Structures are given as structure tokens and as C-alpha cells.
């Protein structure tokens, strides 16, 4: 085995060692020691991954994928499954995202969790999460990926409920758990169907079979793809399985940043990219994914607009952005989806860490209307947060602009102008709530009474690094308007068979329309962002309090901000109203109701069975007799 083959094992091994050391011996360590172990367990594999990435870029196109098979896990007559790792450009990108963001979040957490009595437990869970995430990403087959898939789910469950003394935290953990099980159900059945159909779960063999004349019916392919997509929907919080993510914000903020923004929730997108060869051949599935992605993108953006809680805004924004990634997947431009995953991971991680810093500074305050004028007090946090929001809104020349633009254009090409227009609406609402968030929380007048903690350097350093990356990663989207961006060159052959046709089509098309649309959208987005910033920074009371608005609007007009007021009345109010509907009616009543109702029904059925179990011997005998009678009479009457 080559040097690099061996080093593949080290990527998951290091965080596992971190778990073992801190978990078994951590009781005797000082906090400093625990922190050093935990951070090293992520930092060292990050260095190795960087080295591997460098080698991969140098390697010729044919040998970009590195594999390492540990041993044969399962061997039966029908299928054999290996414990094997695969590091191709696709997983390389994910590994780097996970380790890079994970590393800085670990550093940040050392200070953030400093006072917490569960310090050791927290870092054990975090390292465990990184371990399972690496397994998920680097698995070379579906079964091993499922190991990581369930593992990260378990860690997420434990970390959401980390502050277990809060009842809401325990409830949120439970809800995340229940909703994710629906996704798992699809995933398990999907794997079983793949095994029965293809007799393999190895990604490389699957694509080989799919590339050949396999003669597998379209129906089977469609069902398998849909089942697997259900799994991705649960994990990546797509409508209507998104309800758990906003509640998951009960966990500590670094957890929200790492698991519920930058890495785990994106696993569904990664998974779909892995299954690209299957999706390409299953009719209608890509369209279905695109529709779900679009609904989620617009719907969650609207919901984000209606939130007062800074973390909930970011949570809905995450759901919405993942919706954009699924638009990319559904449009067949997997590279663009992965690019958005990378940029989003960075800027959303940045935003969550910024939100954490704000909470830290304001003694746990979450409501944005109780903040205001933070930019005066927390200069670095505000600056980095602003960069994050610009990237999120997709404003040139930040990274978010490049990735979102690629998605919008791909959607236009694949599904035409109406679909594109709706996606653009989603992007505009994104700009709107970005502006609102910054305007309300960081500008305007101060609504917070009390001292403001200054964050120390360990908190601001990761913010600065991530902010730099949020600006810088846009480079990989260059040169624009071609399928041959830097990022797609790095991705190299990952999607070569599936995207080749697409690339040819793009190359043949005219760029003029694309450029015009991009520029137009950019201008509108920037305008919306600035207007939102102005309205919400100066007159946020009005925007916030719907009931008292008319009187205030009068003052508002009187004060000479007529245009803003009109805009407020015409645009912001209806949006907020729709946002409220999305949040209260659809989320809380319909979807939560269904989830909780299912739980209640199962519970009630359990109660019925329990009641039948009355403790009376007689009924037990009757139960046996009923069974016998059924079996015997079935034998006698139904079978000739």
C-alpha cells in the first residue's frame, strides 16, 4: 500500500483517538489538556488532508481517486461489502470542509464552552462527530456511509440535548430524532433495494454497472433513487422534513455552526452527488429534487424573514441555502451544488460563530430586537458578520455570489425562466433578511442595557479566518460563465460521465444572456439588501410591530422617509405576513402536528395494547387460543 493509502486511515483515526483519550482518561486531565487533545485530533488530520489534496491536484486525471480497503466487512453469496475508504476529488472537498471548519470551531469552542460543566463531554461528542462525519464522507460504499450517517445523527441528537436541564432542549433533541428516522427509513430501504438490484453497494461498481447496458427497469431505478433521496431530505432538512433544524438550535452555538450549518446537514447534498450516476438514469427524480429544493429555498427564506431569534434566522437560512444546493443537484449541475456547499459551509459557519460571539457578549440574548448598534461595540464581530451576510446574500465579489450565480444559471438552462424566476425570488428574500438581520442587530440604536463583554482573541481569530475565506473562496468560481471554473477543475473527473453532456451544451450556448441576467440579478439583490439595511436599521420598530404601524408610519412619512415607508408598506409587511404564515401555520400546525400526531398515535396504540395486557390469566389464554384458532381455521378453510 502506498504512503497516501495508509494516510487515508489516519483521517478518521485521529478524531477516534481523540474520543478515546478524552473519553477514557479525560477525567484526570485539566481543561487545557482536554482542549489540546480535542483540537489536535482535528488539526493533524487537517494537515494530512491538505497534503493529500496537494498530491491529488498534482496527480494525473486518471489516478485522482485514492482508495484503501481495510478488510471485507460482510461476505454473503449475494453481496460482499468492504470496509473501504475512498478519497476522490468529491470526498476530498468534503473532508477539507469538515476538517477546516471543524478545526476552527473546535478552537472557538475552547473559549466558548470554558465555563460549561460538561466541557469534556462536549469535546468527546464533537470529536466523535468529526469521526463519523469523516466515515460518512470517505466511505466507498453505501453500507459504510450509513454507519457514518447514523453516527452523526446520534452525535447531533446528543449535542442538541446537551443542555439537558432545559426541557426545550430535550424536546428538540427528540423531534430531531423522530424526523430523522423518517429519512433513515428511506435510506435503509434504498440500500436494501440497491443490494437486491445491483448486488453491490460500492460506489465505483455502481457507476460501472450504471454506465453499462444494465437492463434494470426505470421503475426500480426511480424507486431506489427516491428512497435514497428521502434519506437525504431528512438529514438535510428539506421541506417537509425541515422542522427539526430550527429547534435544533437549542444546542450550544458551536454545535449549530458545525453540525447544523456547515457539515452534517449538507451530507444529503454530498450523498446525492455521490449517487449522481443513479439519479441521472432515474427519470423524473432530478425534477422532483429540483422542485423540493425550490420549495425549500423560497419557503425557508420567507420563514427566516419572520424570525426574531438570531439563531433561528440563521437556521432557516441554512435550510433555504441547502434548498439551493438541491436546486443545483436537481438541475444536474452537481459541481455547482458542491461549490455552494463549500462556500455556504464557510460563511454560515462564520455567521453562527458570530452569532455565538454576540450571544456571549450580551449574556445569552437571542432576540435581535433587543440588540442594536452592536457594530459600535463589537467591531470585529460586526465586520466579519457583515462579510458573512454579504456572502450569504450573494453579493459580488464574495464567494456566495459565484456559487449562487452558477446555480441560478444552471436552473435557468435546465428548467427555463419560470423556475429561474422563483429561484431568484428566493435569492432576493435572502438578501432581504440578510439586510434586516444586520440592520436590526448591528445598526440603529442600542436596545440592550447592561455591559457588553468584549470577545477575546481566540473567539475573533476563527471569525477573521473564516471571513477571509468567505471572501476568498470565490476565486474558485473563476473564470465565470464557463463550465471550466477552477473548482470544477479540482473536482476533475468526479462527475465526468454525468456532466459531460451538460458541459458541451453549455459551451455551445451563448453567454450573453447569462451575463445580462447575472448582472441584473446582482443589481436587484444589492438594491434590496441596501434598502432592507436602511429600513431595519433606522425604523425597525415599525417593521417589527405590525399592529402599531399605522401611527408610526405617519410619523415616518412626516419625517421625510416617504420612499422607505412606502417600500415598507408595500414590500416588507406582506413578506413578514407570509413569513408568519410559513412559520406558524405550515411549520407549527401542519408539519409539527403531523409529526407529533404520529407520535401520539403510536403512543396511544401502545396504550391500547398495554390495556389489553390486563394481568388476567384468562385473557392471556384467550390470546393463545385466538392465535391457534386463526391458524387452524386458515388451514382448514382457506387452503384447499
Amino acid at each position: 500500500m502506498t504512503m497516501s493509502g495508509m494516510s487515508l486511515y489516519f483521517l478518521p483515526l485521529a478524531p477516534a483517538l481523540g474520543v478515546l483519550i478524552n473519553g477514557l482518561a479525560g477525567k484526570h486531565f485539566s481543561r487545557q489538556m482536554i482542549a489540546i487533545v480535542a483540537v489536535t485530533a482535528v488539526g493533524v488530520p487537517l494537515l494530512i488532508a491538505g497534503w493529500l489534496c496537494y498530491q491529488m491536484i498534482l496527480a494525473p486525471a486518471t489516478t485522482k481517486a485514492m482508495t484503501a480497503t481495510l478488510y471485507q466487512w460482510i461476505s454473503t453469496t449475494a453481496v460482499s461489502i468492504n470496509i473501504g475508504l475512498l478519497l476522490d476529488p468529491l470526498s476530498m472537498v468534503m473532508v477539507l470542509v469538515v476538517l477546516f471548519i471543524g478545526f476552527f470551531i473546535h478552537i472557538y469552542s475552547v473559549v466558548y464552552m470554558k465555563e460549561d460543566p460538561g466541557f469534556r463531554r462536549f469535546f468527546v461528542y464533537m470529536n466523535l462527530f468529526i469521526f463519523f462525519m469523516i466515515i460518512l464522507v470517505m466511505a466507498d460504499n453505501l453500507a459504510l456511509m450509513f454507519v457514518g450517517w447514523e453516527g452523526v445523527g446520534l452525535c447531533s441528537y446528543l449535542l442538541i440535548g446537551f443542555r439537558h436541564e432545559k426541557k426545550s432542549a430535550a424536546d428538540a433533541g427528540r423531534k430531531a430524532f423522530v424526523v430523522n428516522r423518517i429519512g433513515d427509513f428511506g435510506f435503509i430501504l434504498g440500500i436494501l433495494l440497491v443490494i437486491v438490484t445491483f448486488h453491490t453497494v460500492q460506489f465505483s461498481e455502481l457507476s460501472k454497472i450504471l454506465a453499462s447496458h444494465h437492463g434494470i427497469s426505470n421503475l426500480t431505478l426511480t424507486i431506489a433513487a427516491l428512497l435514497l433521496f428521502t434519506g437525504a431530505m431528512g438529514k438535510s432538512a428539506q421541506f417537509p422534513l425541515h422542522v427539526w433544524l430550527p429547534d435544533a438550535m437549542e444546542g450550544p452555538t458551536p454545535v449549530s455552526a458545525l453540525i447544523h450549518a456547515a457539515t452534517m446537514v449538507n451530507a444529503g447534498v454530498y450523498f446525492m452527488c455521490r449517487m449522481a450516476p443513479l439519479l441521472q438514469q432515474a427519470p423524473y427524480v432530478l425534477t422532483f429534487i429540483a422542485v423540493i429544493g425550490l420549495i425549500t429555498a423560497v419557503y425557508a427564506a420567507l420563514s427566516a424573514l419572520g424570525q426574531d431569534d438570531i439563531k433561528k434566522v440563521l437556521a432557516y437560512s441554512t435550510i433555504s441555502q441547502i434548498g439551493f444546493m438541491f436546486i443545483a443537484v436537481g438541475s444536474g449541475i452537481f459541481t455547482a451544488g458542491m461549490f455552494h456547499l463549500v462556500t455556504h459551509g464557510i460563511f454560515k459557519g462564520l455567521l453562527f460563530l458570530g452569532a455565538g460571539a454576540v450571544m456571549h457578549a450580551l449574556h445569552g440574548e437571542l432576540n435581535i430586537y433587543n440588540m442594536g448598534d452592536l457594530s459600535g461595540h463589537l467591531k470585529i464581530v460586526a465586520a466579519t458578520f457583515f462579510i458573512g451576510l454579504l456572502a450569504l446574500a450573494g453579493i459580488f465579489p464574495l464567494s456566495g455570489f459565484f456559487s449562487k450565480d452558477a446555480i441560478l444559471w444552471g436552473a435557468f438552462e435546465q428548467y427555463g425562466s419560470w423556475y429561474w424566476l422563483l429561484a431568484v425570488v428566493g435569492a432576493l428574500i435572502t438578501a432581504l433578511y440578510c439586510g434586516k438581520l444586520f440592520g436590526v442587530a448591528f445598526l440603529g440604536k442600542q436596545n440592550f442595557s447592561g455591559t457588553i463583554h468584549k470577545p477575546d482573541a481566540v473567539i475573533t481569530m476563527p471569525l477573521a479566518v473564516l471571513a477571509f475565506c468567505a471572501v476568498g473562496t470565490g476565486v474558485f468560481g473563476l473564470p465565470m460563465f464557463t463550465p471550466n471554473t477552477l473548482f470544477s477543475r479540482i473536482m476533475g473527473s468526479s462527475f465526468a460521465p454525468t456532466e459531460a453532456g451538460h458541459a458541451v451544451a453549455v459551451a455551445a450556448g451563448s453567454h450573453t444572456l447569462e451575463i445580462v441576467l447575472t448582472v441584473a440579478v446582482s443589481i436587484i439583490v444589492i438594491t434590496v439588501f441596501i434598502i432592507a439595511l436602511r429600513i431595519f436599521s433606522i425604523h425597525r420598530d415599525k417593521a417589527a410591530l405590525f399592529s402599531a404601524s399605522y401611527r408610526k408610519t405617519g410619523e415616518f412619512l412626516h419625517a421625510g422617509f416617504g420612499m422607505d415607508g412606502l417600500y415598507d408598506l408595500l414590500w416588507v409587511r406582506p413578506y413578514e405576513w407570509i413569513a408568519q404564515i410559513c412559520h406558524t401555520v405550515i411549520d407549527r400546525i401542519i408539519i409539527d402536528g403531523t409529526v407529533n400526531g404520529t407520535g401520539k398515535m403510536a403512543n396511544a396504540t401502545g396504550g391500547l395494547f398495554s390495556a389489553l395486557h390486563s394481568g388476567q390469566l384468562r385473557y392471556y389464554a384467550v390470546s393463545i387460543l385466538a392465535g391457534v384458532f386463526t391458524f387452524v381455521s386458515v388451514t382448514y378453510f382457506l387452503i384447499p
Partner: protein
Amino acid sequence: MGIYHFFAIGIILFSIGLIGFILRNNVIIILMSVELMLNAVNLLFVAFSRYLYANPDGQIYVFIIMTVAAAEVAVGLAIIVALYRRFATLDVSKINQLKG
């Protein structure tokens, strides 16, 4: 008198045992019902052995089953004695603390 008569008698006896098991409250009578069921099976064995097959196996099985039944009764009565000491009743419908 043929196989069908014995078969019918056996099934009827077995059913009486079944019904007794379900309807009666007294543990001892329930135990007797079980014994009745076992004896009904014995009758079936003998009948099958005598009328269907020229094979004495079935008649030998009866002895084995009777032995087992005796052992069962021995253990059963011991349990019943202990039960009576504990609950001061032999009414099974009153012994229903474990449920749910």
C-alpha cells in the same frame, strides 16, 4: 366404532379442557383442565396407533406423556401451595398485579 369416534371424543375432551382452562378461576381446576387436555391427546395417540397404523409406537408414547404429566402436576401442586401461602387465595382472577 372406528377412528372417527375416537377422534371426535379426543377433540371433545380437549375442547372441554380448553374451555375449562379459560372459564374457571380456581387454580387447581385449571390444572385439572390441563391434565384433561393431555389425556385427550393420549386418547388420540392410542386411537391413531390402533386404527390408522399397525404401529404400537403411539401406545408407548402414552406412557411417556403420562410420566411428563405426573411431573408437571407435582411441580404445579408445589407452586399452588406456595401461591396459597402467599396470596391466601387460589382465584387467579385476583392475582393480577403484574400487567401493562
